Every structure is written in structure tokens, then in C-alpha cells.
């Protein structure tokens, strides 16, 4: 409750109207009775004007669970249409989102006559699957960009029923990238949200009847996170017109060299969820002396006045640090995009 009070105070300071709090607790289905009591205790201590919302696992809605008692304690619940496999178990199929089917779920959610919102995933993840069964698979921190740039990797693309994309990079031969070695047959699988995996459940949510109060996107990317769709793209996919996706931009920073003009180049707002490869071309107003590419991104100087970088499909990166351009005179840079 101290945290709630602190959040309220911060919201007040920033002029934000706080209407309620949401608890995201993945309680085991068998323990829903205890969870209902916990929620009742929370409810009693919350200020009267603060609404209480919870996220809900789909498993809670099967017959014979204590979900009714839980829903009774809250003002709103958010069924999560993602990560439906039991926690701590690697799914057989590396997917995050579950299909949102109103015909299956609308009646179950509406029976409580309480508002609910549909929880939609906007994040992705990667998993390393070794060819040898002796080695276990594990979630990895690689990005599609890294995998696409690893020599000897072959890509196959698949769509899940929830319209996510599965990128499967398979090592055709023994290869390595950075500190990681791959044997032939090793796989890196990426499960990524797509515009369709976001648009489709948003459309479906409209068919859930009068108690459906909207959708909740889970979640916004943190700093340096590569596989979560940024808000602009989510809103565009959801058809919310107020936040049109920003066009890719070239960020130019003078590195203040004393005897030459050295400039750091970075492309921001890159289309991280393109189905096809995208080529960015940076045109330079005068000849560069040379260009030092940032390791691992593959930007290259193709002529004294031109730098190019190719973005692989679904690269998952919204910022691309290209490298450092060096010229004898001050120069201007212009960014063009080619698909």
C-alpha cells in the first residue's frame, strides 16, 4: 500500500489523474480462493475513488475454478492472451501470443457482468535450440539483427495462428558470432509480434460485447530492448490515428575533432518490423576522408559520398548506430530509404 501511495503522490506531482491500480499476479489456478481474500484485503485499504484491476490467466476461466470470487473483488480484469503455457516450462512452439477468439471467450468473460479488457502482447523473445539433444535449449538475448549477420545462418519464416512471426535461423555449418559458437543444425528462433498480431485481437475485442472495455498492450520497450514493439508502431497497427509512426531519421552528432570533421551517425525510428529487408542510404554533401563503421551493424562506405546499410527483415532494432564519418570540411548528410 505504501507503493500505491507513492505512485499516487508522483501522479499528483505530475498532474496525472490516477483512477486505479492494476495487480499483475499470475496466481496458480488452484489458489484462486486465497487470491480472492487477498484482493478483498487490498480493496478494503484502497481509497474509495481508486479502482482495482487485475490481470487474469486464461486457465482461470476453465470450469470449476475460483475465478468468480476473484472477479467479485475487482472493478476490472484483463485476461492475458499471451504466455499461456505453464510458467518455467519452455514451450514446444516458441510463441508468445494466443489467438483471441470471441466465440470461445466472450461468454466466459461476460458472465461476471464486470468490465474487462483484452491483454495483447507486443513483445517478442528468442530461444536457442541446439542440434544436439544433449544440450538443453534456453532463452537467449540475441536479436534477429545479430542472427541475420551471423555467417552461415539460413532463415525460414513462419506465422503462428496468432499472426506472430517465427524467424528460424538455422546454422547450415559450424559458425560463430561474437563469443558464441554454433554447430551445424543449431537454431535460434525468434517469436515476434507483428502489426497483424496486434491488429487482429484489437479487431476481435470489438466482438466481445458490452462488458469489453478495450484492450491493454503488454508491454512498452525498456531502454535498450530490441524485440518489443514501440508505442508508435503499436498504435499504428491498432488503427489509433493519434500516433502515426515516425519516419526513420538520421541523427548526426559532431564529435568535435580538432583537425578534421568527425561525425557520429545513427538512424533512429528504423522500421524494425518490416517483412522485407530495407536499405538505408546516407548521402554526403562532400567527399568523406573515410568512414569507421560500428562493429556488428554492417554499415559500409560504398563511395566517398555514400554510406549504405541493409536492415534484415524483422530486425527488431529501432536505432542503428552506423559509425563515424570523417571529412576534411564540414559536410551535410541526407538519409534515403529503399526497400
Amino acid at each position, binding site marked *: 500500500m505504501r507503493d500505491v501511495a507513492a505512485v499516487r503522490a508522483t501522479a499528483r506531482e505530475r498532474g496525472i489523474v490516477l483512477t486505479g491500480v492494476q495487480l499483475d499476479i499470475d496466481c496458480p489456478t488452484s489458489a484462486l480462493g486465497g487470491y480472492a481474500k487477498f484482493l478483498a484485503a487490498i480493496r478494503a485499504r484502497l481509497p474509495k475513488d481508486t479502482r482495482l484491476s487485475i490481470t487474469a490467466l486464461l486457465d482461470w476461466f476453465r470450469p470449476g475454478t475460483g475465478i468468480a470470487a476473484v472477479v467479485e473483488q475487482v472493478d476490472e480484469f484483463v485476461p492475458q492472451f499471451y504466455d499461456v503455457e505453464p510458467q518455467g516450462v519452455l514451450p514446444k512452439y516458441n510463441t508468445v501470443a494466443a489467438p483471441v477468439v470471441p466465440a470461445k471467450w466472450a461468454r466466459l468473460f461476460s458472465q461476471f457482468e464486470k468490465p474487462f479488457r483484452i491483454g495483447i502482447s507486443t513483445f517478442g523473445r528468442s530461444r536457442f535450440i541446439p542440434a544436439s539433444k544433449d544440450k538443453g535449449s534456453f532463452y537467449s538475448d540475441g536479436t534477429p539483427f545479430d542472427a541475420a549477420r551471423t555467417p552461415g545462418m539460413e532463415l525460414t519464416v513462419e506465422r503462428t495462428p496468432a499472426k506472430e512471426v517465427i524467424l528460424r535461423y538455422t546454422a547450415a555449418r559450424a559458425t560463430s558470432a561474437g563469443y558464441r559458437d554454433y554447430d551445424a543444425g543449431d537454431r535460434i528462433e525468434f517469436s515476434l509480434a507483428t502489426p497483424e498480431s496486434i491488429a487482429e485481437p484489437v479487431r476481435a475485442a470489438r466482438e466481445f460485447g458490452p462488458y469489453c472495455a478495450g484492450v491493454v498492450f503488454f508491454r512498452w520497450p525498456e531502454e535498450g530492448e530490441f524485440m518489443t514493439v514501440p508505442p508508435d508502431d503499436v498504435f499504428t497497427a491498432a488503427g489509433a490515428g493519434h500516433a502515426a509512426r515516425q519516419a526513420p531519421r538520421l541523427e548526426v552528432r559532431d*564529435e*568535435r*575533432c*580538432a*583537425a578534421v570533421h568527425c561525425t557520429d551517425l545513427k538512424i533512429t525510428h528504423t522500421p524494425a518490423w518490416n517483412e522485407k529487408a530495407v536499405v538505408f542510404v546516407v548521402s554526403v554533401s562532400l567527399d568523406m576522408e573515410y568512414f*569507421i563503421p560500428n562493429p556488428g551493424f554492417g554499415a559500409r562506405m560504398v563511395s566517398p559520398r555514400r554510406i549504405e546499410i541493409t536492415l534484415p527483415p524483422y530486425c527488431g532494432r529501432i536505432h542503428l548506430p552506423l559509425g563515424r564519418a*570523417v571529412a*576534411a570540411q564540414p559536410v551535410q548528410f541526407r538519409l534515403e530509404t529503399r526497400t
Partner: protein
Amino acid sequence: MRRFLVLPFLLAGIVWACGFDATLREYLRISFWRPFVKTPESFRPAGLKRLVEPFAGMGPTVGAGALGRLRRHYRLREYDAIPPLVAGVRADARLTPMEREEVELLELKCAMWREDPAAKARMKEFARKSKFPVYASEARGWLARMHYRDGEQSAAGKIYLAELKRPDTNLSESVLTDSLRIVYGFNGRDTLIAQLEDYFDTSEHAEFAVQMVTNVSRRQPADAPPPSIPYERIQQLMEKSRPVLRSPAVVNLGMRLALQAGNPQGALRIASRAPPAMDDPDFLWMLGASRFLVKDYAGAAAPLTKLANSRKANGYQRAGARYGLCGVYMKLGDRVRQLHWALSISDPLPWSPAEDETGVYFSWSGFDFGLLLDAEASIEDLEKLLAEYPGSEKIALVRYSLAVRLARRERYEEAGAMFASIGAKLRANRIGQLAALARDASPEGRFAMAKYLDENQERLFFNDRLWNGLQTYALMGESDARLTRQERVTLLAAERQLRDEQEERWRAYQIYHQLVREQGNTPLGRRAAERAISCLRRISARFGRAAEVRAADIELTRWLRTARIV
């Protein structure tokens, strides 16, 4: 066991905490050429002797009668106990005039500690009338403190600044500089900018204020926004106060502003109006910096040389100028002079907190110097340096480096003689053995030579008197964006050559490989192949040429496998 485990972590922690200086070619950054950062110490006159007397209340308490009691109460901070006693003490006819003043000041200090609203005015009056410098200066110090307490930064700062320059003050230099740091540090800069007009009453105050406002620390991270400097307002104030400002101040402050605003041409225009004899460190540095930044490298040499030898400059400023001269002569392609100046700064200066803050970098890593000696300068450059500057410090290091370079070029006799001349007996002996082996051109002789190279890793061609184990951090031409294309090409070639020439195993491998080609599938050929593979596999990844090393390993391994079967 635990002790052994803790130690590496402890050492790692210390190394991490201290870091090391891996900077190189800093003169190729604009930030290197910023005007000197000013600290309170920058405004102290050199060699000033001050008073060292007890402050009021700090004299003996025993045997001093009623005054002693007052002193004791004061030391125990019993400020309320003092006023009732003061009248009695004043009535004591035995008090000297100085003791009478002490009583007055003690009473005033109690009023100050009790936050009596009249205390500040009374302290000011006391300071004005006091006949004893010990107490007058103490009162001025307390007055400054009260001004600071009341947010009157300019009044406080001016008192401390004036006191810093007075010989008849009982306030120590460290008290005054620390006080100035407190007044102008932390959030003091904002207040200084807000009260800037107050400082344009005298040239001294204006110089102080403008310099403090325009300070940009060398430690300012490159990606942090520079502190905002109200250039226009300062210029207007300077214009308005021109009659007040001393002529050198007009020049120095103008140049400082222009340089900080990124306008070295403007700084040079101002410098052209300077009195001809102007030679203070600030002026010389900014003149050299401005010329360097407009690429007049030859023109930058004169003021920087003058500063490098100036007695008016502190050690850090002189070292900064010397390092700047390395940059000048690098740009002019004069490796001998570049080496000469690098040689003069290759030792860290004794740490001085005040001077360390002056914002001058002087390459204490020694990387610039090491790279020059080991790769960038030619053997002829090193020989010229020895001929032209025979009296330079560390000349033995130059001779040692030259000997290493000669050895790398297989000039073993000369190298051995030079090692011997500076007492490097072990290296001289090894090079002597190498020379003897080199004389035998037979296959067996060459095999023995390669074996000797392989067995003396880092003991023949590696310069073990440079680098402190950190050479890799100095070989960064690949990622250095501060060079021109030609400089980069030259540097990368020099770095590659250094890596190739100093790697004994690479050189041994080449001899073995040649023997394999010549001898074919013979016992000697096979032994050479085995040893060549062994050399390749023990070459550090830092060496580079990864694809070549791998390809050679595969080729020789396959050859050897086939040779053994046959």
C-alpha cells in the same frame, strides 16, 4: 583458500576503481584546446606569507584571568554565557589594546552564532575599525560567511578573493580557497551567473567571475551537454565596463569567450590587438590553441614553446603546452621534435589537486611517447633525436628503444652494441646469440634461429620498457576518427608493422614455413612444420592476421598429415 580468492577480487576492484589512462593523441580533440580551467588557487599570488596567530578566543585559557574564562566559554560554544561577562572583562584595566579587541570580537562572534540581526553590520564596522590585522582579517572572514549565509554570493566571494591576495591576513590559503570552492561550487555557478553584474566593479572581480563562469572541465563527458555560458551578456558587460578592465584582461577574457564559443578565428582577431609583450600562460595557451584549431600549426609552435618553458606557468600548464607541441609537430610531420616534446612529459607530474583541475591534459599514459618510439618514428628519427638532443631526460630509454628497433630490422650487431652501452646486458646477450645464429644460413642454422626466436617470446623484439602491459590500448588507429585519411593510412601501416616485427613466434613461423617449402618431406621439413604449427597456435589473438594464421595452420597440418603417411 578464501584469502586467495578475495585477493584477486580486491585487486580487480582497485584496478576498476582507479582505472587507467588510455587516452592517446588528445591534441586531436577540440576539448584539449579549451582555455585553462580556473580554480580558486588560480587567483592566489605566488609565495605570499600570511599571518599565523590564534583567532579570537583561541589563546590560552589558563593564566589569562577573566579573558581566559571568556575564551573557555567560547571554545565550549557557550555563547549565552559570554555577554554577561563581557562588561566585567572590559573593566579590567590590565587588558592590552589587542586583548580589548579580542573581547569585542568574541562578543561579536557570539552575537553571530546567536543569529543576532545586528551582527553583520557590527562585524563590518569592527573589521573597518580594527587596528590589529589578525582580528580585522578574522572579522572579514566571518562577514563573508554571513554574506554567503544570506545568499549574497558576490559580497562573500569578493571578500574571500581580496583576502587571498593580502599578506596581512590571518586566514590561511586553504581556508580561503575552500571557502571560494564552497561559494562557487555545487549550485554556486547559477548564482554567479545571476549576480554577474555585481562583479564588474573592478577588473579583478570581473576577471574572476568571467573565468569561473566560462570554466568547462576537462572531465566533462563528451556526450554531456556543455554548461550554458551567457556569452552575449558577458560581452555586453565587458563592453560596458571597458574603462574598468585592465588591457590584458580584455584580451584574455575576450579570447576565452571566443574559444569556448567555438570561434578560434575570433580569438585570433582579439589576440592581434594584444600588447606585444603579453606572455602570461593563459594568453600563450589560447593563442597556440586558436592557431592549432585554424590549422596554422607552424604558427601554434611559437606561443606553445614559450609556454612550455615559461616560469610563470605551473607544471601542469607547461606539460599541457609540451603535449600540445607533440600535436603541432605531428601535424607538421616533424617526428624528431614531436619525440623531443613527448620525451619531456613522459613521467606523471606530482599530483596537485589545484593544478590537476586546471583542465590541461599531458598524456600521463605515455602512450603517445611509446607509440612514437616503438612504431611511428623511424630509426633515422630516433638517431637524429639522439644527435640533436643528447642531454634529454630519459635518453637511455630512447637508446633502448632504438636498439629494439634495430634488432627488429635484423641489425643485430648495432642493436647488441647499443644494448650493451646502456647496461641492458641480458638483452645484449640474447641479441648477440641471435646475431651468431643469423650468420649460419644453412637449413639447420635457420632452424636453430627460428627455434631461438620461438623460445624467447617477448625477450628479443618486444620493447619491455614501454607500455606497462597495456600496448593493445595504444594500437587503436582502426577506430580513431580524429586523423586525416593519410595520417590514418600511415598509422595503420605502422601499427601493423609493429605487430609483425615484435612477434617472435610469427617471425619464427615464417622461417619454419620457408624451411618446409625448401626441405619438403624430410625429417627437417617435418620438424619445421610441427614447430611452425606450434608457433601459429600460440600467437595471441591480439596479433591480428587471424585468417592468415588459420589458413597457414590448416595448410601445414594437412601437409604434415600427408607427409607422415607417405
